[in-house]
């Protein structure tokens, strides 16, 4: 998963999304220790303060937690991760349905089309 950013939105919101994605997909598994802010920032080629801000937001929502001396960890609360996965999934479906509506598809038609579409492997 690469860290590329678009210029027209704050980097920190984009970082929050990327980090959430990594947690949901298990690239950062539950209970895993995260690299230091500086190492993560260097990896993503972003400012350490921006990375810090993104991590603080994940901390506020309970996805990561800090243990005073040991560092920062992904939550072990798998229900919380599952809830985030569902929320992200819903957002994508909403966006998909909105685009289909723009193409003139009703909800049922969109669903039918989705059924017939072969899955990418």
């Amino acid at each position: 998963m690469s860290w590329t950013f678009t210029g027209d939105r704050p980097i920190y919101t984009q970082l929050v999304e990327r980090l959430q994605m990594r947690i949901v997909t298990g690239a950062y598994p539950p209970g895993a220790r995260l690299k230091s802010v500086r190492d993560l920032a260097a990896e993503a080629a972003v400012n350490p303060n921006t990375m810090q801000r993104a991590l603080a937001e994940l901390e506020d929502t309970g996805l990561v937690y800090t243990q005073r001396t040991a560092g920062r960890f992904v939550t072990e609360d798998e229900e919380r991760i599952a809830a985030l996965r569902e929320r992200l999934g819903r957002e994508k479906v909403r966006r998909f349905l909105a685009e289909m509506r723009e193409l003139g598809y009703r909800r049922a038609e969109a669903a039918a089309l989705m059924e017939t579409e072969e899955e990418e492997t």
Partner: protein
Amino acid sequence: MSAILECHGLTKRYGRVHALDGADLVLEPGRIVGLLGPNGSGKTTLIKLANGLLTPSAGTLTIDGDAPGRATRAKVAYLPDADYLPDWMSLRDLTGLFRDFYADFDPAKAREMFAALGLDEAERLKALSKGNREKTQLVLTMSRAARLYLLDEPIGGVDPAARDYILRTIIGNYSENGTVLLSTHLIADIESVLDEVVFLKQGQVLLHENADALREEKGKSVDAIFREVFAC
């Protein structure tokens, strides 16, 4: 926290030309700041004043509370926009030179970065390409644990692949409370690493803002904003 760099009404005249014309700027510790402006807007003049290589015609500039001089030079790591190191020296000699000159220089860090960039320490500077000379100078500069890094066009001459490594080098190596002021016009390449941006226009500070706040407010990249502000 007190400012690491502070300018008030900073002015530098060359005859009738005002290279800087009453610039006000305060930089806090622990930031990466982009000094952005078109050619001739005063970027290099500001950096040279901060190094004490020029003296102001009017106004003040202080580094950590002191006027530029012997004491501030120990706190400031400067990367000029031109070659300045003796080119007959090898990278190993230069590493020794920096160690002798600067108490905060870490030779092990420099060697590690030379290796990562594929630079041979036995090579003399003059045998290197322009891009590799620039990398060498940057490695030496970033191997110091300075309070303020002044980087004048650090990525201008290097290829895009090395540019990424260099940005990571800057992010990974500036000291904890250090501030990095870097001038460039390759904004798109560096904007994701910036905390703050400073736009210089005709010797004055036109804008000084948090980079993410600016993107949020305008819904555009810093690069796009720059192109608008300085459209010819």
